[in-house]
């Protein structure tokens, strides 16, 4: 006998909407990475990695 699956079951519509949200979150995260990268260079200069320890 197969045990019935527990928890919340998403409808197809909910799965579709979740996919659209996931893509949006991925895009936002990628944009944040780019922003912090560029701002680091703007604020600290391109030589940030060449400083002596």
């Amino acid at each position, binding site marked *: 006998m197969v045990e019935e699956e527990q928890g*919340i079951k998403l409808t197809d519509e909910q799965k579709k909407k979740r996919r659209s949200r996931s893509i949006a979150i991925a895009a936002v995260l990628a944009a944040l990475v780019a*922003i912090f990268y560029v701002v680091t260079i703007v604020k600290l200069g391109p030589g940030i990695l060449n400083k002596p320890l």
Partner: protein
Amino acid sequence: MPERNEDAQAIKSSKDTPMSLVERQDTMHEDSSVWTGGMGSASDYVALLKPRVMSLVIFTAFVGLMLAPGSLHPVLGAVAILCIAIGAGASGALNMWYDADIDEIMSRTKKRPIPAGKITRDEAFAFGITLSAGSVVALGLLVNWFAGAFLAFTIFFYVVVYTMWLKRSTPQNIVIGGAAGAFPPMIGWASVTGSVSLESFVLFLIIFMWTPPHFWALALFKSGDYRAAGVPMLPVVAGETSTRHHIVVYSILLAPIAVAPYFLGFATPVYGVVSALLGLAFVGMAVDVWRKRDGEPARLACVRLFKFSIFYLFILFALLLGESLVVGA
């Protein structure tokens, strides 16, 4: 049986106060295997940010940033505007979270994501809080902490002071709540200078004085909506005649304030002349609203003032921006 009692109480309280959508969903879907959240697409979440209000915020904050003395690296300037825009959007989402019961009733707002059943109140709250914190921290870390703190204060002012407190309790809600919408140019200015000044305060004052006649003109031809929702807008509480008096008084106060940038020396005579003429037109239309009290002519006068007020503010700030670009070049 305790469960029955809880059900009975839920039904009783639902009769006393209008149910929020979340409560309604809880009582409608007894079957716990069907989860009613997770129905919002990315575009529904964008709608929570009130993109049209956001566009005005972006524009006025940009003008503040461009007019400020000193310089800011263009990348940091863009980051500042982005943070201010996201902070404004987050305020919008938190406003929709709190006002879902009102939005459900008014024709203008009942298609918003929460009343439309696309996003639950909890989801909107989490989204709004996350973006608020993120925008404030990012503006503080990447631009300066004075601007970050100013943005945090603005979000607090709009969500707590205006939405949660004043909007439902006083007909002066728009007057004081309008301050939240007037802060963005000051935050843009503070992003460059790390402080406030008389000039940035004048930019604030223009939007602050503009907001009441703008919204009261809208409230006059949508007063049925506000009455149905129980929002104490001026036409609902003090009557339409009193609202018309208020519109005229605020318009007369607004017109000279809008010319102030010229007298304070951060705008050219061209701005001085145009803002004075537009101010006269604004007062003229306000008087028209005051004169026409009944029927279709009265409604048309309100619609005309409402539409002109948007054009008026846009032209004033566009002129200031254009002059700063030309003079600065």
